């Protein structure tokens, strides 16, 4: 009987068949159960030995059933895992995947530099008045300096700001020194559009005002920015130039290795200088000095990434936009 049972158990290939065998041998009316019940009919002296043998068989059958069950479960899991196997080399579902505009990436990086240097970030309107864009910045009416900034005038006498500098005036009108601010923003020039000129572009402007801010502080700020953006030890250069709202004025350049030519050269970045006394007068500041500098963000995006045409920034071709990935 035992051999038959063990054979049947080993042959059971489903959990259901195994359950049937359990019932057949161990159930209430099962073979072994019946045999245990039948022990009572045996003589007293045989009963003990026979009982021991039946229990032995029962244990063996139970163990066999348990082992077989575990084996079948293992095999079942194995089969299920096998069924669930996927071809991981098939492509994943196409989820929408976003990204930031290259100009945003470059601006963010610049703002990281300036906020780490303790500057406040401020923004302002794009549609401006003559007062903020020119007059309060010491551009006299009818002065050729205005020609350098071909202006989009509106029919109601306002203008699209030609630089981020109006925010110097707006900020100083509503805040007291000392402070350090940086103003990123969109600006506009009514120029013929070509590969290097756009009618709209972005600038970043820094303004620092305090009791005694010097040109050395200006130079130091530019050097810090250059080091953070282009790497430690980047050389910078100041040269005299003219902007109505600074005196003395300077244009600044950084020395860098041109990614295409591989040559070390000066990259003219922007204008800077000490805030002109007339600008302080326009906002009612006294007994302070300050520096300001500003530059075009497109230039910092175009040159290092080797983008041949500035117009690419505004053409909205996702094949172009999505090339600039990596961080948010």
């Amino acid at each position, binding site marked *: 009987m035992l051999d038959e049972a063990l054979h049947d158990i080993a042959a059971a290939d489903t959990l259901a068949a195994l359950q049937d065998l359990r019932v057949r041998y161990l159930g209430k009316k099962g073979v072994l159960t019946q045999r245990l019940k039948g022990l009572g009919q045996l003589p007293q002296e045989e009963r003990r030995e026979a009982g021991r043998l039946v229990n032995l068989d029962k244990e063996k059958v139970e163990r066999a059933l348990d082992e077989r069950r575990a084996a079948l479960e293992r095999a079942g899991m194995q089969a299920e895992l096998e069924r669930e196997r996927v071809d991981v080399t*098939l492509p994943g*579902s*196409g*989820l*929408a*995947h*976003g*990204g*930031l*505009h290259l*100009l*945003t990436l470059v601006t*963010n990086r610049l703002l990281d530099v300036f906020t780490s240097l303790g500057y*406040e*970030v401020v*923004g302002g*309107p794009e*549609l401006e008045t003559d007062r903020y864009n020119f007059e309060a910045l010491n551009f006299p009416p009818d002065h*050729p300096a205005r*020609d350098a900034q071909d202006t*989009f*005038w*509106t*029919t*109601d006498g306002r203008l*699209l700001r030609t630089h981020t500098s109006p925010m110097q005036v707006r900020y100083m009108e509503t805040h007291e020194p*000392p402070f*350090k*601010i940086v103003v990123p923003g*969109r600006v*506009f020039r009514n120029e013929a559009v070509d590969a290097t000129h756009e*009618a*709209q572009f972005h600038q970043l402007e820094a303004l*620092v005002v305090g009791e005694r801010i010097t*040109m*050395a*502080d200006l*130079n*130091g700020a530019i050097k*810090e920015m250059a080091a953070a953006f282009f790497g430690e030890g980047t050389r910078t*250069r*100041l040269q*005299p*130039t*003219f902007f109505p709202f600074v*005196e*003395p004025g*300077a*244009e600044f350049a950084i020395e860098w290795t041109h990614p295409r030519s591989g040559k070390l050269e000066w990259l003219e970045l922007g204008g800077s200088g*000490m805030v*002109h006394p007339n600008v302080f007068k326009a906002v009612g500041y006294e007994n302070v*000095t300050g520096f300001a500098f500003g530059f075009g963000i497109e230039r910092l995006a175009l040159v290092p990434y080797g983008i041949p045409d500035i117009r690419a*920034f*505004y053409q*909205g*071709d*996702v*094949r172009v*936009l*999505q090339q600039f990935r990596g961080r948010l």
Partner: protein
Amino acid sequence: MRVPYEWLKEFLGDALPPLERTVDLLDGLGLAVETVHSLPGAPRGVVVVDILEAEAIAGSDHLLRTVVTDGVRSTEVVCGAANAVAGARTALARPGAELPGAHHEQGDAGRHQGADPVVVTERTIHGVLSHGMLASPRELGLFEHGAGIITFARDTPLGADLAELWPAEEVIELELTPNRGDAFSMLGVARDLAAKLGAPLRDPTHGADLGDPSSDDGLTLEVADAGACPRLTLRGLAGVQVGPSPVWLQRRLAALGLRPRNNVVDVTNYVTFELGQPSHAYDRRALTNGVLQVRRAVEGEQVTLLNEEQITLHDEDLVIATPDGAGGSRAIGLAGVMGGLHDSVAADTDAIAIEVAHFDPRVVRRSARRHKLVTDAHVRFERGVDPNLPRRASARVASLVQAVAGGLVAAGTSETGADVAALSVRFRPSRVAFLTDMQVPEPEQRSYLEGLGCAVAELGEDAWEVTVPSWRFDLGIEEDLIEEVARMHGYEHIGDTVPAMHFVPPAHDPTHRALRAMLAALGHQETMNYVFTGDAELARAEAPAASVRLSEPQGIERAVLRTSLVPGLLATAAENHAATSLALFEVGRVFGETEQERVGLLWRGPWIDGRWRPGQAIDFFIVKGVLEALASLHGVELRCDAAELPGLHPGVGARVWWDGGEVGTLGRLHPEVAARYGLSETYVAELAIPLATHRIRFEEIQRQPFAERDLAVLAPEAVTFAQLRSLVAGAAGGLLASLEPFDVYQGRQVTAGRRSIALRFRFRHPERALTDVEVDGYMRNVMSAVRDAGYDIRT
């Protein structure tokens, strides 16, 4: 401003450093060097000759047989130039000479384009053997003029090798800033260099004969507007011989990029660049009774200028005029801009009157702009010419004309106005260090200022009075003088420091960095469009009509400012028609009644592209879900109210409420609008920013289990979920923790016109478990409210 290096030597002598060092110095002085041009000299094999004879060749309509001589022997040359006349001194390119600009009759001169030189050969033309060619300035590669042969003054040595007379040279091109009108001349550039180098400056007007104003010269000045013309001088010269200029003068003008005309005009142009003072030579015959007038024009008055254009004057224009002989006055030039054509120097001019004046920069600037003229005179006047220069400049012109065109300068001179008083500026030498952090010793500061033409008087300890020269009207305050000292000393000596400052920057996000990052992470690509657009572009997208218009737009499609971000996004979507799907956003400003910052979003194509298995199409609930996710990231609630909005599908559009405030719109693009852009099913949203963010506040997590009940309600399809939710939530009582729909069904199993919404209610008591009896009670209230509203419970 072009600065021939060799010419600079005349001002600075041996003190002028080599070219490369000079370029560095100029850059360091703020006279930014744009480039250095290497101009070639005259080609080899070209000699100075006289034309002895010139006669038409039979059978040709324009060719001439000329006989030319180099002073030793004569030779025959065929020439087609109208100015190849007997008596002209010109240049013969002998056979074998290589001409850089030949055969480039159109466009720019050959030398600019690196054209291959053409070798001159002996050849027979119309039966005449031509021993070389008479060449134009363009063919010789000297300056841009191809309409005749080059001609020279009589003092040019016959037979001379032109290459010796006209060697190659270097010309520095400066990009001047608008404040430095004084540097718009050789003298001004040289003065800066001299001050920097501490070298003496040779002033070409030094010792010039200024003329005697008391001596009668037969000329009369009538200045009707002394405000616009504070200084006017007129100097007569009789017996001039108008003709070609000497080689040195032509060469100077060519190096400046000018075309030599005749010796008188060339001198006035030369002095414009030499001293920065424009002047004009009138034919003495043009001045009725020797009277030269300066007055405002009469509206509608006309004058033909040297550029051969007739302009109609405006009554604000300032003109040079002369009596018309009939009691009136006629304009003969536009003051400070350009002289008149008919009254200027001509070939037969014998006597001239040289007008040198100072004009109000604003008057000149407005005239030039009004008539769209850009001239060497006007750009100097509008930037500012030394108001005290006219007398000396007049003397310089007169003496140079006499030198190159002969004649006799009148002893007398006619003048109006007086020298402008010099401006004095209080200056503290200590402020140089205060503002620039550079230590410049006082004697050095003084030497720089004096080198620039300032007079320095020491009034006391750290108190100077600096008298500014009349040509430096950009110097008016102490800071201007600090800059002068600083740029002379050199910005390269400025240190670098970081100021100690008590300033704690407030943390805010004016560039909407967080919003941009969230949208990008939620799958959207950022784009940037122009703020300029057109009325048609706005109308096409059904966006609000423009409220801000540009007065001089770059075209009608850029004539107004955008009122919405949607038109730009739609254009971008149309542009990207090849992309499988699009999820775009833009952060930007729109210009309605006020300027407003917004974020615009656009979705098109599948939200999930399944590629090789089913994906997920875009629909309203996906994009609403995106905005809900965005709201959740801000810690606020987002709500949509159905609305019929311009440009949107009337049944799939909503006003968006953010944290209880209306912020914008969301919906499916109206199919008609979509068709205009060639777009399939497209969704757009536009929200005003900054979007409110909830203040973070800690809340204890609810630990009690909730009791859940489901209920399906059958209601007319016009009843919105929001209405139903409001009804049942109100009835469910205060312990309702959440209420979400989990199935929405319309179809065969429900009556037409009705819809089944299955709702999942969750109830929770903050402190204890709810009993079934309690929850069943709440649900009975819900069900009776539903039935009272006339809806059914679906079982």
